[in-house]
C-alpha cells in the first residue's frame, strides 16, 4: 500500500467485491418510497461518519461528494 497521510480520504478502490457491495446497497432500498430511502441514506451517512470519526476525512469526503456532482 502506498504511503499516505493518516487522515487522507481514500479515493482509490478499497471495497472487496465491488459488484456485491453495490447490489446490497441497491437492495437495501427495494420497495421504499423516495422519502423513506432518503431517510435511510441519512441514517447510513451518520453511522458511517461515526465509524470514520476523523473530522478531516469527513470534511474531505463532503468536499469530494459536493465537487463530483452535476446539478440536474
Amino acid at each position, binding site marked *: 500500500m502506498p504511503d499516505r497521510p493518516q487522515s487522507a480520504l481514500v479515493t482509490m478502490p478499497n471495497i472487496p467485491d465491488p459488484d456485491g457491495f453495490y447490489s446490497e446497497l441497491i437492495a437495501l432500498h427495494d420497495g421504499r418510497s423516495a422519502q423513506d430511502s*432518503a*431517510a435511510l441514506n*441519512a*441514517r447510513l*451517512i*451518520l*453511522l458511517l461518519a*461515526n465509524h470514520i470519526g476523523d473530522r478531516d476525512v469527513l470534511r474531505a469526503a463532503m468536499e469530494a461528494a459536493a465537487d463530483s456532482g452535476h446539478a440536474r
Partner: protein
Amino acid sequence: MLDDRYPLEYRLYPYARSTDQDAATPVRHPVVIMGGGPVGLACALDLGLKNVPVVLLDDHEGPGQGSRALCFAKRTLEIANRLGCAGPMVARGVVWNLGKVFHEDRKVYEFNLLPEDGHELPAFINLQQPEFERFVIDRIRAAQSAGAPITLRGKNRVEAVQQLPDGVALEVLTPEGPYKLEADWVIGCDGAGSPLRKMMGLGFEGRVFEDSFLIADIRMKNESFPTERWFWFEPSHKAGASTLLHKQPDGVWRVDFQIGWDVDRTEELKEPNVRKRLDAMLGADVEYDLVWTSIYTFQCRRMTDFRHGRVLFAGDSAHQVSPFGARGANSGIQDADNLCWKLAAVIAGEAPEALLDSYSFERQAAADENILNSTRSTDFITPKSEVSHMFRNAVLDLAEHHAFARPLVNSGRLSTPATHDDSPLNGPDAVTGAPERTRPGSPCADAPGEEGYLLRRLGGMFTLLALNCKVPSGADALGCAVVDMACSPEGALGQRYLGTRGQAIYLIRPDQHVAARWEAPTLSDISEALERAKGKV
C-alpha cells in the same frame, strides 16, 4: 406617561424623590446604570461592593412577573457567591440531573448529567427570574446598610443621552417630571430592546428566527411529576412542534410549546386555548392552575462593539441569543463580572481606559460563542429545510438504538463560561503539562482545599495562588492577595491546576479568570503579567 409596561412581581424600589431632582445644575455620578434586570443589579452590587458610587435607574419599581430566565448555571452562581448572594438562590432553586428526550410518542433516550465532584455550587439551578433579582436586591440592601454607595431609583426613565468629552449627560423622566443627571460612565443593561442603544443610533445585527414559542407556567394540583427535564421533538400530542417541560420551585412547571411563526398572539394566549395544548400534552385528567403565560420570538444578534466612549453595554442590550442553552442571563452576569473590576480599576486610576476595550474584546468573543451554540440548537430543534429535518429525525431514530448518535441530539447546550483565549490581558502559560482547563483566559475551576473551596479563597481582587510553593520574595508588595495552598496530584485541586507538575503559581484576575501561570516565576515575570492584565501593556 410612565405607565408600567409589564406587571411587577415585587415592588422593591418604589419611586422616591431624589435631591438630584432639585439641584440647580445636573449632579454628576461616577457610574449610572440603566436597567434593573439581573445584569444591571449585578453591576450595581459588584461596583458598590468595590466602593464605586453607582446610581441605577429603572423605569419600573421592581422585578417584573414571569419566570423568564429560568436556568442559572454554575458560573453565575459562583459570581453570585463572590457577591454574597448565592446561598439563598441555591437553597430555593431546583436542581435536576435527569433529562429525557422524546420523539413523537417514543422515549429516545435519557441522560444523567452527573455533575463533576469537588465544586461548591451545582451545575445549575432552576429559579424564576424575579426570585433571582429579589435575592440580588436583598443583598444590595444589606450592602447599603454596611455603607456600600449604591442607589436604586424606580420609575426613573432615561429619555435622552448625550456623550460629553469626559462623560455622559442624561435626561430622566419621573412621575414628578424630568430632571438632568451626568455620569462619568454609563452601563446600558436595558435589555434586548435597549432604548439606550436606540437613542445612540447603534446597530444590532443578526438573524431572526421565524418561530414563536408559548410558555405556560403551571402549578400541578395532585400530580407529582418528577424533577426532570423532558424534551419532545414533534410530539404526537401535536400541542407544539417541540415541547419542553421543566421544573421550578413551589411545584410549578414550565411548559414551552413551539407554535410556528404565523400565530394570533391574543388568540393563542386565551386561557381555553392554552389549556387545550396543555391537556393534549398532560392528558385531560391532570389538574393544574395557570400561573403565567407568554409568547416569545427570538433573534440571535449582537452589537459590533460593546463600548462606545463612556457608554458600555452589558447583557441582552449588547447581545441576544435564543433561549436554548440558558445563555441569556448567564452570559449577562458574566458581562457584569468581566466589566465591573475593570471599570472600578479605571475609575480608581489604577488602569488605563484601554482596559475597558478588553471588556468589549473578551465579551464579544463570548457572545459569538453563545450565538453559535444557541443557533445550532435552534437549527436542530426547528430544522429550516427538508433535508435538515430528515437528518434531524435520522439522528433521533439512531439515538434510540445507538449511543453514538446521542451527542448529536441538540435540545440546548447548557451555558458554560467563556475562556478568553486570545485576550490581550493573558500572560505566559509556563507550566508544562498543566491542564488545559486552567490555561490563561479560563475561568478558575472550583476545587476543595483544606481551608474551604478555592473560589471562596480567591475573593474578588488580583490574587497570586501558590500551589505547593511560595511566591518570590517581594511579590506580596505588588498589591495582589496571596493564597498558599497545598495539594496532592490525586486531589481535585492538583488535577485541575497542576496536572503532571509538582508546583505552580497562578496569577488570577478579580473576575477569577486565570491571567498567567508559571512553574517558578521571578518577581519581574509576575509584575509584568500583572501590568498586562491591567491593560497597561
